[in-house]
């Protein structure tokens, strides 16, 4: 059976140790040399960058996240042993792991590291689909002759280079489609290299829970539970038509995934579906002025990102989380797509005004979706708000000033609340 040493990249036929370097980190799989769809996921990315840049943190539990009220964005593996997980409220994380070092995220550093990894991946294949700063799909189909080595070798080499040149580790999942590659990269974390071949796809999936499917969250899980579907085996017992009848479009996808089929391609720049920003307050508040200030800042952030990407949206969403964590979400479709902070703010404000007042909130978010290109946006004025046009012009002028003199060169009074 084809085998590969992950340390010296020697290929050999059989054995539990590498014949060249005698080390045991080997991968053995029948389809080792033919599979070409990969998912690379960095190990505790933010925390690893912090540990790399500050060696004093190396043997300490490190949590990346903001403030007393924030949530954990990444926990290093030492903190994970104590049960700390991503998206966990910070106070809970600290209960589990009181000696943790909390580090405020430094996104510039992560973006830079991500860019360096991306450049290494570019040397392997042009077909890269980043999912976030620290993970990406790669399609290496047809690159074997170019590189003189099968994808598995190139991927092992990528991980070696990341460790040697950037001091960062990652895990690889290699399979025959994106769905399985993504599952594989998670099987053996950290510093993993897992393969799911065509031959064992079905037997591999059968006993596993359906929540492995990327995109099946708590809500979908509950729907599936109600239908008695917990494992892929349960799913296999369903007719395709019945699944479609019960779950709609998702049903059809489930039917295929149950058979390990996923025809989605690895596409560069998967189109963005929505832009949103939210903030968790350091203290719950029902102060209308403070909330209004947050509303404006979130609208402005969303608008800034939309403008940076040349996008505009037709649907504005307002998200609020009450003190008891109950979520309120309101949306409104506009006739004309927008990327203007003033319009986004006014719509979000209108939505906010429909929510019962006096309520204390812990989180507020604003989102823009149903995205279109910016040249299809803000083309029509509002008969009933003739000043909207001049406010939009003022905003464009503000943007120009900021571009020249910096982000804080000019602010709305509202943003200071």
């Amino acid at each position, binding site marked *: 059976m084809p085998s590969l040493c992950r340390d010296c990249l020697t290929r050999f036929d059989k054995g539990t140790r590498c014949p060249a370097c005698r080390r045991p980190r080997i991968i053995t799989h029948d389809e080792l040399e033919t599979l070409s769809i990969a998912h690379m996921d960095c190990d505790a990315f933010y925390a690893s960058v912090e540990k790399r840049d500050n060696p004093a943190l190396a043997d300490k539990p490190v949590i990346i996240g903001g403030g007393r009220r924030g949530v954990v964005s990444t926990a290093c593996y030492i903190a994970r042993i104590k049960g700390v997980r991503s998206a966990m409220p910070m106070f809970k994380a600290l209960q589990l792991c009181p000696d943790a070092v909390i580090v405020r995220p430094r996104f510039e550093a992560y973006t830079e590291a991500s860019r360096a990894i991306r450049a290494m991946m570019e040397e392997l294949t042009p077909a890269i689909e980043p999912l976030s700063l620290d993970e990406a799909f790669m399609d290496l189909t047809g690159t074997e002759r170019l590189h003189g080595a099968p994808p598995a070798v190139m991927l092992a080499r990528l991980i070696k280079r990341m460790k040697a040149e950037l001091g960062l580790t990652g895990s690889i999942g290699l399979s025959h489609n994106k769905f399985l590659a993504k599952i594989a990269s998670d099987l053996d974390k950290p510093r993993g290299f897992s393969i799911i071949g065509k031959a064992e796809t079905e037997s591999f999936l059968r006993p596993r829970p359906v929540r492995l499917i990327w995109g099946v969250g708590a809500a979908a899980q509950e729907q599936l539970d109600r239908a008695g579907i917990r494992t892929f085996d349960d799913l296999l017992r369903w007719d395709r038509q019945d699944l479609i009848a019960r779950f709609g479009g998702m049903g059809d996808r489930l039917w295929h995934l149950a058979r390990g089929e996923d025809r989605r391609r690895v596409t560069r720049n998967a189109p963005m579906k929505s832009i949103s920003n939210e903030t968790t307050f350091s203290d719950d508040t029902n102060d209308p002025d403070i909330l209004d200030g947050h509303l404006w800042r979130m609208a402005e952030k969303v608008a800034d990102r939309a403008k940076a990407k040349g996008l505009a949206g037709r649907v504005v969403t307002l998200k609020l989380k009450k003190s008891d964590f109950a979520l309120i979400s309101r949306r409104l479709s506009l006739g004309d797509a927008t990327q203007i902070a003033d319009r986004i703010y006014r719509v979000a404000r209108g939505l906010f005004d429909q929510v019962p007042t006096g309520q204390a909130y812990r989180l507020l978010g604003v989102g823009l979706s149903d995205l279109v290109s910016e040249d299809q946006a803000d*083309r029509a004025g509002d008969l009933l708000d003739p000043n909207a046009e001049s406010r939009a012009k003022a905003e464009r002028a503000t943007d120009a000033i900021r571009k020249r003199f910096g982000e804080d060169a000019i602010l709305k009074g509202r943003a200071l609340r």
Partner: protein
Amino acid sequence: MKISMERATLLRAVAQAQSVVERRNTIPILANVLIEAEGETVTFRATDLDIEVLDKAVAQVEKSGGTTVSAVTLHEIVRKLPDGALVVLSDDAAAGRLSVSAGRSQFNLATLPKEDFPVMASSEYSSNFTAKANQLRRLFDKSKFAISTEETRYYLNGVYMHVAEADGGRVLRCVATDGHRLARIDSDLPTGAEDMPGVIVPRKTVGELRKLLEEDDMDIAVSVSETKVRFATPDITLTSKVIDGTFPDYTRVIPQNNTRKLEVDAAEFAKAVDRVATVSSERSRAVKLQLDEDRLILSVNAPDSGAAEEELAVAYGDDRLEIGFNAKYLLEIANQVDRENAVFMFNSSGDPTLMREGNDTSAVYVVMPMRV
């Protein structure tokens, strides 16, 4: 209660009731129609708590009384019965069933007690007048397309019916707008309407009202208060709450000084707009109008899907002008024109444009341009 009615009469009464009933209901009795028989008349009453419709019909009443039953189910049954059938409705209060029989068909429907049926509180109307069905039909038909569906500006979710000062004196006026376009329709002021408070008639009420206005010469009794409006024919009474809000000052929106005048055959214009818009796959399709001496070029340029152009012979004598509009809005206002040419009055490519039919100022439309 036991009554017999001719199927067509029953169908008409029940149809009106079932269309008021909300399809998704959390309060069971609101899905029901209240049927009450007394003397020689039967009344059918349905409500969604905002609108109440009351329909009277002549029937052979063997036993007076009343009950409530699912409006949609009853309507479906009656609709499927053969034409000309005699339908007998008989209520068994003890069993909580209403039997519906016609010929050899027999149905038993679950009922809810009539005492539970919410009857809209009667109110004092400060203004009562009569208008012809065709007069109201014109007012609402020509304005309703501009009603907004946006819930944050709920005060735009209806037609603003009020008394206004026009060039030829006081008029009964209906205005609707969604911020993109506006319709302002005037008609003669009926006697008795002079002191009517301005009210915003909700979209659903406008739709229900339309069914009362089929016969041109029918007299419609209109009653208005600050909170309610009522339209009544001899058989049907439609009562509705009005939208509790202030309609914006629309008069500022109507351009007074637009001087560039375009006159065009509305039907030809609408067809041409529709044709060129075909190539665009965007949701808000933008059409560009290029105006030159007696010539109008309509064009659409959609980078992703294609381009189209069409030339129309028109009457235009002002400076060259290029202006863009949402194709849907142009079509909707052009479709309001039925007798004469459409007259557009432009200012600049960024200002609202006015449209009317010939020189008739009793129906004017304003539409906001779009950057193209």
